């Protein structure tokens, strides 16, 4: 090969570069190193992280962004061995050798726990072919000082290691000899001049060693960071790694700041005694032909039948699917869409991808597991026809270009939701079908966020946990870009304090550093060839689960295929509801056959009767429903998308609502006449009455109104998607607003549009995604409307999910005339079930899963030996042989009601049953042997205590609401019930008290929304920011809250109580259990643990 740069004396390439993907070892991002190498004019840069290739794609991506002369990127790894072998840099010369390096690292990972890699020299020897190897006699990091004895013993030997950080010449010689026998031309000895005092002598020494063995010497600077200033951060990450403070770290830290990328001149000077070592770096670079461009991705071909091409097969399946969806007459619109898509798919040669996803989905359906595609895939008619997505192209205008575009040349991204309880089956099937060497999960790079950064950095500076907890807890929401000084002040620490200031500075630098790799929730990468020759694969925490070293972005960069196998609780719930409906009502439904556009369903939603309904059950959504009044499917799409940070931050919600209700005319913002057509935004915004609501509308705005080029728009899209890289989006701000205003748009509109884009950054919904979700909204609402008992039952059996606790779900079911029956040994199973009701309806029987502390296997045993029923507690005990603890729990939960004795008596009786570990001698007389007892009756259990006990055991009570017992007390204070509040006149003063269900502080608005519940319903409380500070203690601490304020009736009859004064009345709950005894005022410092959790914990924002 012709040498590209020639062997000039003033050329240098740094071969030993450690990035921060050598977790807590490197102190610079790959991007920083690449940019620095380019600035310094290095011929090439070799990224060699510690037993990993995790950072190379980042480096590769960074290289693409560099304008002008780019260094050549060498992809390699620093092999760190578990058997004491010195570190070796390994660089593959070609694609085949790269595959071997991946196999080598995968093998090392397989032998190690998650996140680690154990290599021994033999592993390397096995895969050595084609790898250029640089042996580094110096360890990468200072070793911990050996034990005294060990040290003393070593002193006895004459041939000692020179310093704790260097291997002995004998070891190095032996290693070089061993490696040389296999590939004599591929071995180097790497030396660094790090200002350790004896550098020259060491250089001379290694020169001799190298020349006697016949191995070239190569100069490196063994780089850990891109510039000298990063030494501080390197010290910090070293301390984090070693769990030590800076003051304790001593010689674990580098002695100086020399391990940065140095200029060519500096390197030449350092190696003036060995100029060949500098030249050698260029020879080395020229040997390597491998680049990441050569990773050619192959789609798996399993799903394609013999004798057909993938494209033909997809073609056939798509038209079959269309016939299944539409019958024999396929609408013209669909027909056109399908043809267009199939053509594009053929052109881009991605048919196998669709077939693979179809394959997974078909398996899922065959197992009666519900699934549905989400995200941009819902823009595809082919996906609809294949049954992957549920968005009918007849109902919505598809934007196939959003999904696949020729320009982007990126593979499509299909995300599919599966039932959360059965996703594992799907995953196991994928492994069985493709094998673990061809299927693996993508990685998620876990990065330092403000909270974790300050916590770890604080520890390193010796700040106490309380101080750092204080600092980190003042960071509301964890995605902020940096700890600001105001946040430091909020944490009530003086930012001027040197230590705190340093810790915060370091934490800010640390934010965004990768900390470790974790598995992606469900992103599968599948290949035709061996995946482990493409990228190293390692085991995940879960057994037989593997993940690769690259994350979603890396996979995109390299254009590999990924299928997201996601879990969605609502699908579980819907499937369970369908099952119940089939068993108890004899009707069969699936996602595609639920009757569409039923007006009664929409009426229910308009009333905000939406507890348990997918997506629209949150407080904000329930407020929106009566205002938006959805009456058709597309309204639900908007409903789902509008209550999101994007439209809210962009202040787009109210304009849309005003236009919808006809208060404001529908008009389209337009540029100045000289800059474009007046109606240029009509196409973009006509669906949403001239107000941008969806993510793609915002993108279109950038292209049409702000005249972004395709490249710029792509950059904006990426900045938006990777909201973790906060800061990047700001680059687009001036461009976006400036151009829009320049073209004659109003400043205010432009700013709002951009704010919206920023909002989408956090959690944006594209239209297609909203449509997929809207489909589930409709289906869950339909079930709730027509099968309320099955709906409540399925919801409870799918917990934990959704927004509401079981108590609220049960209350809602009862309000919809579903009889709910208590847990009972004679009737309940583990799951909640449906039972026939005399009037032909179905009643909901609570199951043992609602009883806290009860176990599924106990429930099964109990059900199995129930026969004709239990008539006494002793029969239960004898037949089911449950441990005493189980019987006590059952009695506590009042589940012997059908036996007909008082809960208290039963509980007292159960406690008398001998313990499980009774001696075998007495086993015979187990329960029966107990003589009848003649005891006084216990004091009767008041209802209020029954209710409390129910709450303790079940988190709900069917007997009464806690507030019922306090009603007289509060009535005497003039407190209204929640129902009365909801009927009260607008503007009237009122008091309301109730159990706190939720507290929320949306965004950083400072407003707190609380929901109070009592025996008649729930009331919504709003606390304005000013009051939040005054009543902070009450707001945050109260379980039972009394609020004084003004009733406010909003659009759609939404009622809020706007707080003026707030009281914490939690102590009133004590009255409920301490009824008949006159308590002495006890000075208790320990509240009873049972009492502490009497009231279910509210769902809060912190």
């Amino acid at each position, binding site marked *: 090969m012709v040498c590209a740069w020639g062997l000039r004396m003033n050329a240098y390439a740094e071969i030993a570069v450690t990035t921060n993907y050598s977790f807590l070892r490197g102190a610079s991002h790959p991007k920083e190193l690449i940019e620095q190498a380019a600035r310094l004019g290095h011929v090439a840069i070799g990224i060699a992280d510690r037993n990993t290739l995790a950072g190379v794609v980042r480096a590769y991506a960074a290289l693409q962004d560099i304008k002008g002369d780019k260094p050549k990127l060498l992809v390699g790894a620093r092999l760190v061995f578990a058997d004491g072998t010195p570190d070796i840099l390994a660089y593959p010369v070609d694609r085949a050798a790269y595959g071997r390096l991946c196999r080598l690292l995968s093998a090392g990972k397989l032998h190690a726990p998650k996140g680690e890699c154990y290599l021994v020299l033999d592993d390397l020897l096995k895969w050595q072919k084609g790898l250029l190897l640089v042996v580094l006699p110096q360890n990468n990091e200072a070793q911990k*000082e*050996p034990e*005294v004895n060990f040290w*003393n013993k070593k*002193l006895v030997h*004459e*041939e*000692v290691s*020179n310093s704790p950080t260097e291997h002995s010449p004998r070891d190095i010689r032996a290693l070089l000899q061993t490696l040389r026998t296999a590939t004599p031309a591929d071995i180097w000895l790497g030396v660094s001049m790090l*200002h350790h*005092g*004896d550098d020259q*002598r060491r250089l001379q020494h290694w020169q001799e060693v190298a020349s006697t063995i016949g191995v070239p010497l190569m100069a490196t600077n063994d780089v850990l960071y891109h510039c000298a200033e990063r*030494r501080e951060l390197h*010290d910090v990450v070293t301390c984090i790694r070693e769990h030590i403070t*800076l*003051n*304790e770290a*001593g*010689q*674990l*830290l*580098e*002695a*100086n700041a*020399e391990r940065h990328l140095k200029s060519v001149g500096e390197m030449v000077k350092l190696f003036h005694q060995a100029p060949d070592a500098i030249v050698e770096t260029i020879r080395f670079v020229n040997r390597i032909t491998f680049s990441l461009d050569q990773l050619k991705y192959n789609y798996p071909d399993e799903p394609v039948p013999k004798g057909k091409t993938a494209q033909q097969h997809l073609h056939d399946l798509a038209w079959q699917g269309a016939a299944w969806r539409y019958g024999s007459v396929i609408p013209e619109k669909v027909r056109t869409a399908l043809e267009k898509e199939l053509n594009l798919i053929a052109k881009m040669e991605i048919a196998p991808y669709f077939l693979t996803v179809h394959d997974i989905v078909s398996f899922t359906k065959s197992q009666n597991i519900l699934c549905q595609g989400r995200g941009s895939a819902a823009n595809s008619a082919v996906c609809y026809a294949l049954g992957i997505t549920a968005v009918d192209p007849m109902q919505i205008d598809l934007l196939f270009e959003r999904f696949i575009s020729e320009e982007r040349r990126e593979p499509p991204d299909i995300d599919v939701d599966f039932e959360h309880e059965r996703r594992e089956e799907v995953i196991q099937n994928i492994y069985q079908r493709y094998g673990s060497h061809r299927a693996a999960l993508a990685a998620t790079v876990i990065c330092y966020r403000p909270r974790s950064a300050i916590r770890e950095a604080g520890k390193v*500076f010796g700040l*106490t*946990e*309380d101080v750092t*907890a*204080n600092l980190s807890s003042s960071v509301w929401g964890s995605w902020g870009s940096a700890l600001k000084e105001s946040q430091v002040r909020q944490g*009530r620490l003086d930012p001027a304090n040197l230590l705190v200031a340093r810790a915060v500075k370091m934490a800010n630098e640390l934010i965004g550093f990768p900390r470790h790799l974790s598995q992606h929730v469900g992103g599968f990468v599948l290949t035709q060839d061996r995946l482990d020759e493409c990228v190293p694969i390692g085991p995940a925490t879960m057994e037989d689960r593997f993940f690769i070293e690259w994350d979603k972005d890396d996979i995109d960069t390299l254009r590999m295929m990924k299928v997201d196998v996601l879990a969605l609780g609502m699908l579980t719930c819907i499937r369970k509801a369908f099952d119940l409906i089939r068993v108890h009502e004899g009707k069969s439904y699936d996602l595609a056959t639920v009757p569409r556009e039923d007006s009664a369903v929409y009426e229910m939603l308009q009333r905000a009767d939406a507890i348990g309904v997918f997506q629209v059950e949150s407080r904000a959504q329930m407020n929106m429903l009566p205002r938006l009044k959805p009456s058709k499917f597309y309204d639900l799409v908007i409903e789902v998308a509008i209550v999101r940070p994007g439209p809210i931050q962009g202040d787009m919600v109210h304009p849309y609502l005003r236009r919808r209700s006809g208060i404001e005319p529908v008009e389209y913002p337009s540029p100045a006449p000289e800059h474009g057509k007046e109606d240029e935004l009509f196409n973009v915004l006509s669906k949403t009455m001239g107000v941008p609501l969806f993510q793609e509308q915002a993108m279109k705005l950038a292209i049409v109104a702000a005249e972004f080029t395709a490249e710029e728009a792509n950059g904006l899209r990426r900045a938006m998607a990777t909201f973790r890289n906060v800061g990047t989006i700001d680059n687009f701000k001036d461009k976006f607003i400036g151009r829009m205003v320049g073209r004659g748009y109003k400043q205010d509109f432009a700013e709002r549009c951009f704010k919206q884009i920023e909002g989408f950054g956090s959690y944006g919904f594209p239209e297609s995604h909203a449509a997929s979700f809207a489909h589930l909204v409709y289906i869950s609402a339909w079930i709730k409307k027509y099968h309320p008992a099955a709906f409540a039952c399925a919801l409870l059996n799918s917990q934990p999910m959704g927004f509401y606790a079981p108590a609220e779900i049960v209350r809602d079911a009862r309000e919809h005339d579903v009889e709910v029956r208590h847990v009972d040994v004679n009737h309940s199973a583990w799951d909640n079930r449906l039972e026939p009701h005399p009037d032909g309806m179905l009643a909901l029987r609570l199951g043992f899963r609602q009883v806290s502390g009860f176990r599924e296997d106990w429930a099964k045993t109990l059900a199995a030996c129930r026969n004709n029923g239990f008539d006494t507690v002793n029969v239960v005990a004898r037949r089911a042989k449950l441990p005493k603890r189980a019987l006590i729990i059952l009695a506590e939960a009042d589940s012997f009601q059908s036996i007909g004795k008082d809960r*208290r008596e039963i*509980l*007292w009786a159960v*406690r*008398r049953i001998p313990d499980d570990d009774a001696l075998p001698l007495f086993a015979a007389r187990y329960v029966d042997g107990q003589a009848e*007892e003649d*005891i*006084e009756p*216990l004091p009767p*259990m008041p209802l209020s205590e029954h209710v409390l*006990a129910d709450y303790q055991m079940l988190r709900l009570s069917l007997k009464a609401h806690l507030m019922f017992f306090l009603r007289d007390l509060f009535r005497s204070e003039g407190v209204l019930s929640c129902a009365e509040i909801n009927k009260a006149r607008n503007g009237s003063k009122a008091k309301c008290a109730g159990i706190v269900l939720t507290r929320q502080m949306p965004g950083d608005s400072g407003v707190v929304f609380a929901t109070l519940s009592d025996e008649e319903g729930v009331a919504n409380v709003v606390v304005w920011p000013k009051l939040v500070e005054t009543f*902070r*203690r009450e707001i*945050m*601490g109260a379980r039972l809250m009394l609020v004084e304020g003004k009733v406010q009736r909003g659009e759609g009859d939404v009622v809020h109580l706007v707080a003026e004064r707030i009281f914490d009345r939690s102590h009133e709950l004590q009255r409920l259990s301490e009824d008949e*005894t006159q*308590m*002495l005022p*006890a*000075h208790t*410092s*320990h*509240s*009873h*643990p*049972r009492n502490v959790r009497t009231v279910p914990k509210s769902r809060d924002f*912190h």
Partner: protein
Amino acid sequence: MALWFPRLPTDRLQRREQAQKKPVFEAPPLVLVAKVNNALRLSAVDRKATSLGLTIGQPLANARAMLPELKVVVANDPADLKLLTGIADWCDRFTPFVALDGPRRLLLDVTGASHLFGGEQAMLDHIRSKLQAQGFAARGALAGTAAAARALARYRDGAIIASGEEEQAMRPLPVEALNLDTVTTHALRRAGLKTVGQIATRKRSELVARLGAATLAVLDEALGNAAKPITPRKPPPDYWQEQNFAEPIVTEEVIRTTLNSLTVALAKILEQHGEGARRLEAMFFRADGAVRRIAVEMGAPTRDAAIIGRLFREKLAMLSDPLDPGFGFDLIRLSAGRVERIASEAVDLDASGNEKSEINFLVDRLAARFGSHRILVFRPHDTHIPEEAWVSVPAQHAPPSKLPWRKTRKARDAPRRPLRLFARPEPIDFTAAQHFIWRRARHAVTKCEGPERIAMQWWRHEAPQLARDYFRVEDSEGRRYWLYRQGTPPQWFVHGVFA
């Protein structure tokens, strides 16, 4: 008698603050936190925090959300225990039978002791008021049994219940007064038996069958039907010898001979057990109640009466505040603490072993005479900074170093650190012609190696610190120096000389 200190940890901190005379304007509410299941939870709450609604067991995040101004300190159980032990020591004056009862309580058996302090009422009031004056939220009660006293201290502070009247006093108290475990307490409450009185009406067999005999025993004790003797706290010394005097003694002579005889007796006991003590304490109880303690410490466990005797003599001779017998001592006690096994009695033939024990003895003697903080030994300190590569610590307490001394040379190689390091680096002039002028003399550099670049510890200094470049230098006369340069233009220093 039961004494209860419900806020011991916060009292501890607040007393310390008061002792330091820190001005307290509107002190913020104070809580202590401990990690429970990986979450910080409140483990103690002061009066103010209680009144603002904070409770023990609450998550810290939660408490902070309620009261951002909250002052939070990490719990320190050993310190609390030490404080409680200290209070117990103080209580020793009322009765020898003082027991620690859980982390927040003391039990005192005052049978036959109260008359010395003006009767039960006067004694209880005295103790409570003294403790309260000390800054403790102390509550106390007196009853015939420990269980009853414990319950009353909590629910009826200051109560004195005569023996036999416990049942009447206990009946109205809630079941929690029995101090049973939470499961049992819950079981009783759930059965509707919410007061001690209600429980007492149930059949004994009924209770035993359900709650176990132990519960019944507690009940019996609380009702005064059975008494369990209190176990006085384990005397802190492992071994001790004491001598009582019917007539209080005053003369130094007697004191000294008594001490000697106690030493011999104690040494014998130690020998029988094959053990030696590292701390010996002599307690002189004065007839008027004051106690004087004098302790000597040893670097290694010792049981040699002669050595111990000599150490005490040195210590007594050096006392700045002489032993004032006042009306005389009526009891002298010598106790051995920090007892450890002594491996073998055989004389160590290895001379170095003897040398070592002699050094130890020298250290002990010097420490007894000058105070242990004055006798120091060097230990290596892990750092790159040359002048900080060691620390000096009190020789008696110096643990064997975990770190070895850093090796400054390779085998058969010149040392990397000078034999003599100057306390203060001395500035020199370095001329272009490879000469430097130090202490007015001119030195021609003939050999030189370096640089060894050492960067300073950036986190310790406000301003950025310059790194040093060290060179090992030999002059024309063969003398070797350790020089460094710093900054641009470089300033040069001699930091040390090699042999």
